[in-house]
């Protein structure tokens, strides 16, 4: 039975290269795109229900930092912090970075990842479920997240898919695939 150490982890070198990078520009970009997504698709906030304005921590096992996500009509934000600085979070989701990305676009099934312990949750389970179900409905391809449509969205999605395939291939050489079905549908 595989455990988290055998999951789809990025090579430690990636974490070492990311660690010294400045957080602010990335926070600003992620927050701006998240605000635009929420403004474009208000039905997602309705689906979130009680989780609106609630901080949720996303903690990639194989990256140096955690992400604190808060979704709101006007003040959606993504902040990047140390993994020890997530005490404000009402719920915490932990998994390798590539697994978390696969959850965003629907490549992986969240329940299956949880059953196999490739994904762990803490705190308020109902908040995690609401976020998971909302993301499922959001169909968050890179093009959708960046607010693109038509050919430009197709191009970005194609490039994103190829980069993810490469990253998964690279990670699989250093670890192994999660035991859940990891093939895009």
């Amino acid at each position, binding site marked *: 039975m595989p455990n988290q150490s055998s999951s789809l982890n990025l090579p430690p070198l990636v974490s070492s290269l990311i660690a010294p990078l400045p957080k602010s520009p990335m926070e600003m970009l992620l927050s701006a795109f998240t605000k635009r997504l929420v403004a474009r698709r208000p039905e997602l906030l309705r689906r979130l229900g009680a989780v609106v304005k609630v901080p949720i921590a996303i903690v990639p096992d194989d990256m140096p930092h955690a992400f604190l996500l808060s979704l709101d009509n006007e003040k959606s934000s993504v902040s990047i912090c140390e993994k020890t600085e997530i005490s404000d979070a009402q719920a915490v989701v932990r998994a390798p970075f590539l697994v978390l990305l696969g959850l965003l676009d629907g490549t992986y099934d969240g329940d299956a990842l949880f*059953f196999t312990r490739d994904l762990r949750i803490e705190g308020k*389970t109902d908040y995690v479920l609401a976020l998971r179900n909302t993301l499922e409905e959001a169909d968050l391809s890179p093009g959708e997240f960046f607010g693109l449509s038509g050919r430009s969205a197709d191009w970005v999605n194609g490039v994103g898919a190829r980069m993810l395939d490469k990253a998964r291939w690279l990670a699989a050489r250093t670890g192994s695939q999660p035991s859940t079905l990891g093939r895009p549908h």
Partner: protein
Amino acid sequence: MPEGTTKRMELVCPAGTPAALRAAADAGADAIYCGFANETNARNFPGLNFSPSELADGVAYAHAKGARVLVAINTFAQAGQIHLWEEAVNDAASAGADAVIAADIAVLQHAATNHPDLRLHLSVQAAANTPEAIRFYAETFGVKRVVLPRVLSVPEIAALNREIDVETEVFVFGGLCVMTEGRCALSSYATGKSPNLTGVCSPPDHVDYTEDPSGRLQARLGGFTIDSFESGQAAGYPTLCKGQFSAIEKTGYLFEDPVSLNAFELLEELSSAGVTALKIEGRQRGKAYIAGVVKAFRQAVDGLESGADARPAIAALKAFSEGGQQTAGSYKKTWR
């Protein structure tokens, strides 16, 4: 349907979100069941389900793909709030749904009286498992299909089908409820909420997971420790009937370890037993599960006629199962 009939069985697939509905339709579902985002359906989990307008869009999408949409309005109406259930039936009819799946006789009566052209299926929540009970629903409300409780064996289903004129639908894959549905009060005892009245078994707002530094995971429901899992061991959702308990100086699971139903090996027997439709559980699951399971069972059902081997596709579904394990459940009754 009489026993021995070899008509192609219908594949009925779950959808908790519009995206899941589209995934099910794209993967080859014959019918898709879903519910509204309130207490009228038995999968009332946060972030799940449909608004009336989302349902109408979903029906249009499914119909364009040749699939039907069945709307589960299958909890029991509460005193003073029957309007919520009646509105749900009205909204399903307005959205162009192909059938309503109901259990409460007040809901069935409202549908039969106000929407006589709307097909009615009897939910598993009604726990109708005798010819007499099923005939009552058919004769009184015009019910055309009954979803059978997950406590019957294949010979029992065959015997039942010989005595009724109503179509039968059985679960073949997914989360396994081992209790007589609609009559189970375990979740209500632990949390005050139940699938019967509030539409949620083991509600997530009462679920708590704690992992200690050694990686040992404790799963609690309503403050009760239901199960624990060693580091790396496959985990399950803390549903009371699937927990570990100590009694008569023994500690163990009540029925089986956390497992999911997989009746693939029994499809031919179920067909011979006169079953009309095969149901996949999992409205709370994501698109990856829906697409994978529906595609595999599409191959399996079609393979009954074509002879194509669906075993590799079905074998790949094990990773989707709770506890990483599967069982034929009551169909074979191997429980102690």
